[in-house]
């Protein structure tokens, strides 16, 4: 084919999945931050669970707004100036931002664990054959919320004009602008959406573990990245499969070996995937003529 391909530089620097992951990574720490701050406020007020149970929707919205704002500012100062720079630049910037955020939270909130009273308790028994399995309500709720959000996010990306613009910007930023898409605004919105989702993830983390400190966002962030790499960067179903796999592997590992070293499992997967299967399980096939 005779057509000259347009310069790679126009296409490389914005990757939807990478943007979401960066937004997520830098946001998870702060998300975990916003929710407990508000939770603690509630605790001091009356020191009882009831207040938390009444106020959590408000706190969640506040956490999302705060995290989205953070993320918007971070995109402006730490990513936008690097657009069109070499591919690794935003990643390095993301790591820098993540270190900055953790330290910032440490200074503001102190280095110790913060906790909230349990928000959801109790278990459900599901009878299976002669026996039954027991699942905690909070786990069931986490699972359900995650599934619903995934569905909503998938719908936004695949079916709405905003999602289409996001994909167009990812695939060819310059062409998107020639069709009237405001590239800067689209990327900002992507970060804001990613960060709001991370805020919910942070809140779910609190529901699950009940305690958090300034550095707790880091490991989940890297694991989320591992899940995305394992599933194939750029593939939403891949991220789901990757996440489930990582969870299963960690659980098995803890059961058969030692739970002290379960992070080793996740990080080994990251290394092995990057070396032997860089496009992941469901990564996009590279058969395209452009």
């Amino acid at each position, binding site marked *: 084919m005779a057509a000259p391909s347009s310069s790679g530089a126009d296409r490389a620097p914005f990757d939807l999945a990478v943007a979401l992951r960066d937004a997520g990574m830098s946001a998870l720490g702060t998300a975990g931050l916003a929710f407990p701050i508000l939770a603690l406020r509630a605790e001091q007020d009356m020191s009882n669970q009831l207040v938390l149970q009444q106020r959590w929707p408000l706190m969640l919205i506040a956490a999302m707004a705060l995290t989205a704002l953070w993320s918007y500012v971070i995109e402006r100062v730490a990513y936008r100036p690097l657009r069109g720079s070499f591919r690794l630049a935003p990643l390095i910037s993301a790591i820098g931002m993540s270190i900055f955020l953790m330290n910032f939270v440490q200074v503001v909130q102190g280095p110790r664990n913060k906790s909230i009273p349990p928000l959801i308790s109790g278990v459900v028994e599901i009878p299976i054959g002669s026996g039954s399995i027991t699942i905690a309500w909070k786990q069931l709720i986490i699972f359900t919320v995650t599934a619903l959000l995934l569905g909503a996010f998938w719908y936004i990306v695949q079916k709405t004009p905003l999602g289409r613009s996001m994909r167009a910007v990812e695939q060819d930023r310059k062409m998107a602008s*020639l069709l009237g898409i*405001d590239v800067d605004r689209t990327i900002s919105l992507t970060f804001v959406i990613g960060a709001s989702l991370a805020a919910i993830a942070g809140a779910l983390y609190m529901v699950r573990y009940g305690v958090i400190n300034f550095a707790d966002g880091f490991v989940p962030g890297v694991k989320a990245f591992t899940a995305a790499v394992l599933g194939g960067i750029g593939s939403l179903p891949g991220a789901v499969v990757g996440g489930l796999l990582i969870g299963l592997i960690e659980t098995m590992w803890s059961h058969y070996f030692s739970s002290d070293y379960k992070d080793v499992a996740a990080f080994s997967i990251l290394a092995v995937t990057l070396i032997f299967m860089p496009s992941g399980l469901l990564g996009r096939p590279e058969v395209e003529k*452009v």
Partner: protein
Amino acid sequence: MSAAPALAGVAGSGRQPGKPLLTLSGVETFYGKIQALKGIDIEVREGEIVTLIGANGAGKSTTMMTVFGAPRARRGTIIFDGRDITRLEPHQIARLQIAQSPEGRRIFPRMTVYENLQMGASINNFAHFDEDLERVFAMFPRLRERAQQRGGTLSGGEQQMLAIARALMSRPRLLMLDEPSLGLAPLVVRQIFDVIAELNRTQGLTVFLVEQNAFHALKLAHRGYVLVNGAVTMAGAGAELLARPEVRAAYLEGGH
């Protein structure tokens, strides 16, 4: 969005050149230190087909992209419909209903044909989307058959059709085409040029056409400009340029 729909424009056959729609004056564009455009003056009037021909590297594609502000002209002015657009952002320029089928086609490879066409209609918020879709499918029936196929897997010719159809989905007041004949079979080239002529004749669509295929382009266009090394060296009616010995010698050997 304000402006009147493009396709209601100028009455067809009796060619009364309309008012100037796009005017480039003294436009200079640089890539770093390299000067690609050395002060060019081009005018496109409403209802006209104007072509820009020139050898490889003359600056034809640069001219088209400069109109969109990517890269931005370092000197000179670009007026569209009476408004200075020299300093606007590319997406703001696109929203004035200037559409481009750029060099290399730039189809979104991991979007379907249908989604690519939806992207073309973004600026008018999908008003009259179905109607416009029917129109481009009637022009290029191939695209209807391929509607759910990914853009990146289309053949070169199909991608070219899609690029033009995508540009038309915005109901442009000015359609800019960068080498629509590139890499296509003569029959398809003929078909695409027929479509352009038809749109211009029946709906008064204004077209700015960049071509290597000077013979076809000059026959189709009302007026043409010859670009050499970033400067306009000749301008005139299409037929007139076609008759000039210099043009024939430089751009038309080997016929069409």
